[in-house]
């Protein structure tokens, strides 16, 4: 249930963004849309700087000296980014997240299509998949470290479990709501079942798949970081934990920024994919 609601929201949000984006209108002249874009960019920069200033002032005025502040973080960036420990942690976490997302997309799409197209299977399994989705998967991490050892495998399993559910839920929703106008055409022209699944249900579910991936990215990062916390695995999560415990908050903050930027880049890729690969969806 929760999954459905979230999917609808993200789909709406994307639809809304597409409609409001300057290059989708067509009616607005080129120059005006560019000016608007510059205005948005300026507003963002000003707001960001204002937040940093407030943080800096508050930290200096009220907080003990070991609390991280923007200027300290900025000063730390070159030495942290250059350190081998940081680079290895970054590579380890990001690769695990990408690998986990890739596995989750394949498994989730397959599971979603099965649930979306085969009503009996959906009815039998729905309750359990719902429960699995509602469960905080981080609570499973201690168990998983026993089953898979304090290893990158355990982290990968956590990432996949976190990411696979929103993907499967979204694709299932897409499969369930597949318009009968499409299935009628397929039947009238005598398409076999596998062509209906791969040639019609799958492409029709692509917008749902991508909105599921959008949700999965955040969950995958949570899974990776928590697994590193608990299993003390090399990665950005453990890098943060280690540095905070040794009072190097500035260094921890740099790692945090990398995680945020990575999440934004991945979600940007999803938006870009929708624009480039699904022009028909954006135009609807």
């Amino acid at each position: 249930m929760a999954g459905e609601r979230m999917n609808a929201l993200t789909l709406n949000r994307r639809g809304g963004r597409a409609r409001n984006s300057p290059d989708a209108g067509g009616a607005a002249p080129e120059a005006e849309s560019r000016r608007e874009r510059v205005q948005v960019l300026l507003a963002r920069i000003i707001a960001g700087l204002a937040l940093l200033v407030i943080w800096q002032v508050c930290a200096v005025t009220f907080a003990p000296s070991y609390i991280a502040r923007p200027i300290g973080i900025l000063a730390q960036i070159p030495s942290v980014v250059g350190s081998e420990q940081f680079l290895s942690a970054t590579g380890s976490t990001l690769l695990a997240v990408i690998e986990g997302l890739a596995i989750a997309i394949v498994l989730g799409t397959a599971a979603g299509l099965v649930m979306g197209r085969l009503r009996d299977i959906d009815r039998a399994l729905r309750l359990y998949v719902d429960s699995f989705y509602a469960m905080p998967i981080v609570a499973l991490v201690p168990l998983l470290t026993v089953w898979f050892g304090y290893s990158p495998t355990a982290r990968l399993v956590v990432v996949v479990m976190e990411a696979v559910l929103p993907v499967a839920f979204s694709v299932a929703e897409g499969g369930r709501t597949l318009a009968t106008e499409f299935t009628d055409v397929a039947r009238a022209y005598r398409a076999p079942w596998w062509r209906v699944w791969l040639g019609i249900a799958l492409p029709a579910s692509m917008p749902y798949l991508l909105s599921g991936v959008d949700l999965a990215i955040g969950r995958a990062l949570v899974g990776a970081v928590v697994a590193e916390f608990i299993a003390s695995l090399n990665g950005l999560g453990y890098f943060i934990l280690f540095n905070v415990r040794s009072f190097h908050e500035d260094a921890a903050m740099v790692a945090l920024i990398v995680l945020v930027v990575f999440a934004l880049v991945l979600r940007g890729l999803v938006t870009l994919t929708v624009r480039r690969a699904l022009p028909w969806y954006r135009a609807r």
Partner: protein
Amino acid sequence: MTDPAGSTAGPAGAPLIRVDRLTKTYGPRTVLSDVTFDVGPSEIVSIVGPSGCGKTTLLRCIAGLTAPNGGTVSISGRTVTEPPEGVGVVFQHFGLFPWKTVFGNVAFGLTVLGMERREAARRVHELIAMVGLDGFENSYPYQLSGGMQQRAGLARALAIDPTVLVMDEPFASLDAQTRDLLQLEMLRILEHRPAATIFVTHSIDEAVLMGDRIVILAGRPSHVADIVDVGIPHPRGREAVDSERFRVVRDYLWSVVMKDQAVPGTTRDRGDSESADRHHERTGE
């Protein structure tokens, strides 16, 4: 069969499609009752009736998309239980796949048939040209107007070289001008490559212009109120609608439709049984 002006045109050759005492119910509601008619191998039969009278249901039964509760549909002597081979379907909503280009959509039926790629491409290009979509092969449906989308829908149906063509109000969602244009183009195409064609419409004028014969559905549940020979010679052009014959047939259709509308006025149940009785008298069953 009724002929409003005494012409003798009948179905050309032995019937290819035979609809025999077809009945369809949805739950307690009977939509189609005892519908019987047939269609010759190169004949165009219009099916006309008010919205909600079960025209689309009838068409879906013929295309094998919906199973009837009673009676049968047979095509070339074989009873239809699933969508049969060689039947091209044109939908009111076009039914184009939005993620496929015009080329991909038109090729759909041929791809399913497993036709060799180059041969299929040649055929698709030919049909795209025939329906006037030259240069739009790589466009997506959302980039086309409604009329152009339905042209692609037509090309897809014709691509499989159908012996039977079923069209469900194909021009109903188009603007009047586009509709007029496509009606005449459709007639021209069917003169070049004939098929047993079922053309469902709620427009009486369109039924007369397109059809060699017209099946009038009326009443609740719908039954065949009459089958009318149009008797306007082919090739038909725009001038067909100005002919005396067109006017006579159209007026006759209106009179049948109005008469049937008037019957269930007093009580619904009586109206239903009455119209059913009249049908039995007329068909002699």
